[in-house]
């Protein structure tokens, strides 16, 4: 059984952030993966494609919780441009003995391409927190869903991430 201090996060908005998709960041991202698709790299090629300009690889906006309050290296809350709750479920779980965590997996649904220069708004909510008994004790699963909109207010993608805490 999880304490109420943890389960009260279910259904809560953890944070909203706005960020610009920079062309240089797209190229660095693709390079780090070893993905040299010209749609992510080559201005001229991308201009002549059906997209008309460089696009980001699906999943570029990646790990939804990156800037959330209790992630590995959160920004200084005093100076953070991101609106978040003060602490997230991971920090609270750590107080209840679940101090180790791993990324469990990801689910995406894509609706529109993301172009260099787009400004995305991402909102993350906690979908569910469950536990089960593992080989070495209890495991808590935190599922969060992040919805991305572009500067026109159009839905771009949904990302559902699972974090494993033990």
């Amino acid at each position, binding site marked *: 059984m999880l304490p109420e201090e943890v389960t009260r996060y279910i259904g809560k908005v953890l944070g909203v952030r706005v960020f610009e998709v920079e062309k240089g960041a797209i190229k660095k991202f693709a*390079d780090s993966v*070893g993905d040299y*698709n010209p749609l992510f790299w080559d201005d001229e090629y991308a201009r002549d494609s059906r997209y008309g300009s460089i696009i980001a690889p*699906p999943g570029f906006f*990646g*790990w939804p919780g*990156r800037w959330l309050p209790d992630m590995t290296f959160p920004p200084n809350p005093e100076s953070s441009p991101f609106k978040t709750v003060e602490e997230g479920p991971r920090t609270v779980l750590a107080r209840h003995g679940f101090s180790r965590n*791993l*990324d469990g997996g990801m689910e*995406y649904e894509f609706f529109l391409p993301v172009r260099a220069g787009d400004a995305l708004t991402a909102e993350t909510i906690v979908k569910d927190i469950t536990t089960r008994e593992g080989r070495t004790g209890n495991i808590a699963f935190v599922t969060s869903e992040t919805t991305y909109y572009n500067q026109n207010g159009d839905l771009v993608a949904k990302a559902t991430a699972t974090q494993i805490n033990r």
Partner: protein
Amino acid sequence: MRKQLYWEDIEVNSEVTPLSKVATTRMLVKWAGASGDFNPLHYDEHFAAGQGVGHPIVHGALKRQWLVQLMTDWVGDLGMLKRFSCQYRAMDYPRPMKTQAQAEEGETWWCKGKVTRKYTEGDQHMVDCEIWIENGKGEVTTPGTATVILPSRG
């Protein structure tokens, strides 16, 4: 334009063109910087040992992105990745570097997939695939699924 796959070119059980990858400590550093994931689990021996994984492990999200590339390479410029999922079921460990640019001998990972369903949804030509990453021993560490929209010749 690069070579383009069409919906008519494939059938159930068709193979997704495999993609090989070599995870190195260098690649993990680049991924950390590019993705913004600075969890020391992926670069710090002491921290990784304390977390019970032995040594620094390959980021799950980097493996995810290899599988995304498997699909975007396969569907080409006119195809679109619509749905995607993967689970990080087993740890993978990067190869150390021998020189600044070259990794030591060791594991090569293969991203693979096969078509499980071919159908239309409205006027869209869809394909579902089972996808996965195999480690150097041929074990699946990262299974998943993908749905893509392909252009049709029809």
